[in-house]
C-alpha cells in the first residue's frame, strides 16, 4: 500500500473518470455549436462563460461550506469586490494583469477583515453575519457613487473596461474567453482537490465533523477556518475578474442575496464536499435554467425560486447526500462495516446503483 502512495493521490476512481469525461464532452458542446454555425452568434458561448464563473464561485464556496461546514450566506460579496475592483482599475487604465492582482488581493483582504470577527461564531450566527456582510458590499457599491457610479453601474459614460489581456496574448473573442475560463475552472478544481486530499483538507473536514475533537487533536480551528475563508476569496475574485472583463458591464445587482442562496444550493444539492457534485450542480442549477430562458421566456426566471424549493424538497426526501456525494459520504449509506477489498471492488460500478 505504501509503495502506491503516489498512485493513491494521483489516480481517480472509475466514477470520477466517468464524470470527468462527461463534463469534458459537455464543455466542448458550445465550441462545436459555435464552429458549426460558422461563428455567427456566440450566445451559447456567453452562457457557458457565465456557467464557468458560477462554477468558480461554487468551487470556492465548497471549500467553506462543503469541507469546513461553515454556512457562508454572503459569498456573492467577494464576487462583487473582485468584479468592482477589476472594473475600477481597468477603467483607470491599469493593465489586466495588474488590476486582476489587485482584485485578488482586495478580495482576500475583504475575506480576512470580515472573517476575523465572524469566524468564531457558530452555526446560525455565522450564517446571519456573513449574510449581512454580503449585503453590505451591495449597499456600499450602490452608494459609493464617485468610484462605482452607483446603481447605473460601470463603466460610466466615456469609460471602458479592457479585454482579458496577458501582454503577449489578448482574448478578443468569446471563444477565447471561454477556453480561458475552462482552463481556470480546471485549475481551480485541481487546487481544490489537492487541498481536500492533504493534511489541511483532513483538518478542515475534521472541523466540520467535530470541532472540539479536532482542536484537542492539535488543529488550530479558528486559524484554519480563517485561512480557508480567505483562500475561498481567491475563487470569488477570479470569477469576478472574468465576468467583468468579458461582460464589460456590471451593476450592484451582481451582488444579490438570491445569488448567494443559489450558490449554497449548488454546493448542497450537488453533494456537500464533492467537487464533481459542485460542478454538476452549477451546470444544472445555473446553466440549464439560463438556457431554458431562451425557450420558455422570462416566466421561467420567475418560477426559478419555486422550482428550487421543489427540487430542494425532493432532494431532502430522496437523496439527502446530494447528487454526486463525495466519495467519503457515499459509504455512509452502507448498513454495515466491510472489509477494505470488498469496498474497493464495490467502488468500481456503483455509479448506477446509487
Amino acid at each position, binding site marked *: 500500500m505504501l509503495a502506491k502512495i503516489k498512485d493513491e493521490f494521483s489516480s481517480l476512481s472509475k466514477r470520477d473518470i466517468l464524470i470527468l469525461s462527461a463534463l469534458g464532452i459537455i464543455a466542448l458542446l458550445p465550441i462545436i455549436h459555435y464552429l458549426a454555425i460558422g461563428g455567427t452568434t456566440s450566445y451559447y458561448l456567453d452562457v457557458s462563460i457565465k456557467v464557468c464563473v458560477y462554477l468558480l464561485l461554487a468551487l470556492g464556496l465548497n471549500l467553506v461550506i462543503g469541507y469546513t461546514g461553515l454556512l457562508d450566506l454572503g459569498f456573492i460579496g467577494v464576487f462583487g469586490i473582485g468584479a468592482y475592483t477589476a472594473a475600477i482599475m481597468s477603467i483607470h487604465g491599469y493593465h489586466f494583469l495588474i488590476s486582476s492582482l489587485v482584485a485578488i488581493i482586495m478580495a482576500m483582504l475583504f475575506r480576512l477583515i470580515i472573517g476575523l470577527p465572524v469566524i468564531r461564531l457558530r452555526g446560525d450566527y455565522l450564517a446571519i453575519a456573513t449574510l449581512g456582510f454580503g449585503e453590505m458590499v451591495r449597499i456600499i457599491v450602490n452608494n459609493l457613487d464617485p468610484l462605482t457610479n452607483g446603481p447605473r453601474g460601470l463603466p460610466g459614460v466615456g469609460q471602458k473596461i479592457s479585454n482579458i489581456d496577458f501582454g503577449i496574448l489578448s482574448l478578443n473573442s468569446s471563444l477565447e474567453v471561454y477556453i480561458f475560463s475552462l482552463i481556470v475552472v480546471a485549475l481551480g478544481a485541481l487546487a481544490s482537490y489537492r487541498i481536500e486530499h492533504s493534511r489541511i483538507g483532513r483538518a478542515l473536514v475534521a472541523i466540520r465533523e467535530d470541532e472540539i475533537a479536532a482542536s484537542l487533536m492539535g488543529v488550530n480551528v479558528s486559524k484554519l477556518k480563517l485561512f480557508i475563508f480567505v483562500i475561498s476569496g481567491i475563487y470569488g475574485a477570479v470569477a469576478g475578474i472574468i465576468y467583468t472583463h468579458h461582460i464589460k458591464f456590471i451593476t450592484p445587482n451582481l451582488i444579490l442575496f438570491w445569488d448567494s442562496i443559489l450558490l449554497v444550493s449548488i454546493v448542497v444539492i450537488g453533494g456537500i464536499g464533492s467537487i464533481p457534485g459542485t460542478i454538476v450542480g452549477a451546470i444544472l442549477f445555473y446553466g440549464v435554467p439560463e438556457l431554458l430562458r431562451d425557450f420558455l421566456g422570462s416566466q421561467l426566471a420567475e418560477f426559478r425560486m419555486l422550482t428550487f424549493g421543489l427540487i430542494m424538497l425532493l432532494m431532502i426526501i430522496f437523496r439527502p447526500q446530494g447528487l454526486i456525494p463525495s466519495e*467519503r459520504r457515499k459509504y455512509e449509506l452502507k448498513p454495515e*462495516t466491510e472489509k477494505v477489498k470488498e469496498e474497493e471492488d464495490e467502488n468500481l460500478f456503483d455509479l448506477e446503483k446509487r
Partner: protein
Amino acid sequence: MVILELQGITKSFGGVKALSDVSFVVEKGQVTSIIGPNGAGKTTLFNIISNFYKPDSGKIIFEGKDITDAKVYECAKLGITRTFQNIRLFYNMTVLENVLVGLHVKAKSGFASFFDAIFRTKGFFDTEKALRERALEVIEFLGLEDYINTLAKNLPYGLQRKLEIARALAPSPKLLLLDEPTAGMNYKEVSEIMDIILKIKDMGITVLLIEHQMMLVMGISDKVVVLDHGVKIAEGKPEEIKNNEKVIDAYLGREEAETYA
C-alpha cells in the same frame, strides 16, 4: 519522575462545585487511575488538564512547565492527548483519516504545508508516506486493520472506542488521558482494553485513566486517586484504596450494594 502535577484545582459551574482544591501528581511511565461515583468531577478534571476548561484557581504543571493558560489546540503538541467519555470521532471520515487527523501535529504546518499540498512536492509525498506508516502501525496495534477505509460511523461500538484510542495514541503522546475506555463493553472487550493499556505503558507512555471497572483499575494501576463530590478523598496504591474506609463508604461500598440489590 513527575510528569504532571495538579495544584489545588478548583472549578465551579454555576452553583455546582465540580472540583474543590484537587492536588496530586502523576508519575512518568505509570498508569494512574481516577475513580469515584457519577458526578464526582473526573471528566471535569480531564477537561481541565486538556485545557478545554480553565480552572477557577489552581495550576497544571506538565513536565515542569505551567500549562494552565495553554490553548486547547496546543495540548497535542505539548504531548497530551485524550479520548472522550462520549465517543467523539470524525464520523464521516474513514478509520485511516481519523488516525491521520490524530497525527496532525506531527507534520509540517502553516503555509509550507499548503504550498506542498497545492504543488504536490516531493516533501508532500514523503510526509504523507511517513504519516500513513505511523497511522497503519497504530491501526494494527488496535486491531483495526480490516477497517482502514470504513467510515467511523459504520464501526461497531467497541471498535469506535478503539479508534478513539488509536487517534489519541498516533502522535505518540507523553501523557494519554483515557476517559472510561471500557464504558459499555463486555467482559472480553474489557480485558482486551486492559492488555492494550499495559502495552501502551510499555511503550513508555504515561496513562491517566478514568474507570468504573474495578477489575481493570485494581489490575493495572500503579496509583489510584479517588474523587467524591469534587474532593479528593484518597490516593494510593490499589491495595491501599481497596481497604480505605472512606472509599468503601463513598464508592466501592455503594457499588457492592448495587451488585447485590
